[in-house]
């Protein structure tokens, strides 16, 4: 089973990398960009086929390692 985990900065947390990318897009003439926030994507392959078990495993993975919940949120897509 394949899953995708998306980790993003919580709103309110300063994202200097996103700001720099936003500035670069503007300087490239890409119009209509109001703001950019940078995040991370993890594509995870799971051995089992049970969706509920997979969700629980990925949640544990996020809490233990993939996200720093002080500053980041995560979303699991199965």
């Amino acid at each position: 089973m394949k899953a995708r985990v998306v980790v993003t900065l919580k709103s309110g947390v300063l994202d200097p990398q996103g700001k720099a990318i936003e500035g670069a897009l503007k300087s490239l003439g890409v119009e209509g960009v109001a703001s950019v926030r940078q995040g991370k994507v993890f594509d995870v392959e799971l051995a089992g086929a049970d969706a509920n078990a997979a969700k629980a495993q990925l949640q544990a993975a996020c809490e233990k390692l993939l996200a720093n919940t002080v500053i980041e949120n995560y979303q699991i897509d199965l």
Partner: protein
Amino acid sequence: MKAAVVVFPGSNRESDMARALTQATGRPPAMLWHADHELPAGTDLVVLPGGFSYGDYLRCGAIAGRAAIMDAVRAHAARGGLVLGVCNGFQILCESGLLPGVLMRNANLRFVCRMQHLKVERNDTAFTRQYTKGQTIEVCIAHGEGNYEADDATIERLEGEGLVAFRYCDSAGAVGGESNPNGSRNDIAGIYSDKRNVLGLMPHPENLIDPLVGGTDGRRLFESLASAA
């Protein structure tokens, strides 16, 4: 004082740290590998040195913070044992849950490598007793992710309980403004755990222990530790 330095893949300041500890304590520290499971018997102080453990993959200190040896370091800290984390070591302490908050990318996005003045917030801890309260010291910094962030409640608690160890200041001791190199909240350069037996700081006191390389203001931190146990 029996000290141990933990070496992770990508640590690079462990020799500097060992030199500073040897100078202050009179004997070389034990060098531990990240895959070790226990500390040498009678260890008083565990040090996590600077560097780029695991290439800063995922987040700075994230993978090192979950290395095998860290369970032993957590147990040591829970017993009241002394733990010092410098630079990447500070990032590892935050990622391992031994200290609150997180070190984010410097606000100006630049890696900063320069001399830096710090204000010593208190001198009644195992790490700072050889300094005076409010003293301005000059050490060096070298980091790209030293921007200390925590939620408002945590910052309030750190301030209220006197857990800020060092703040960035200028040569006259004025805190903040231009002298803050990375955008760190409240100009925080280092913090203590609740019991003040764990200290994490971004600057490198271990590099300022010899007049040959620009100063000796870092030496007293190690002398404080040497006299602590």
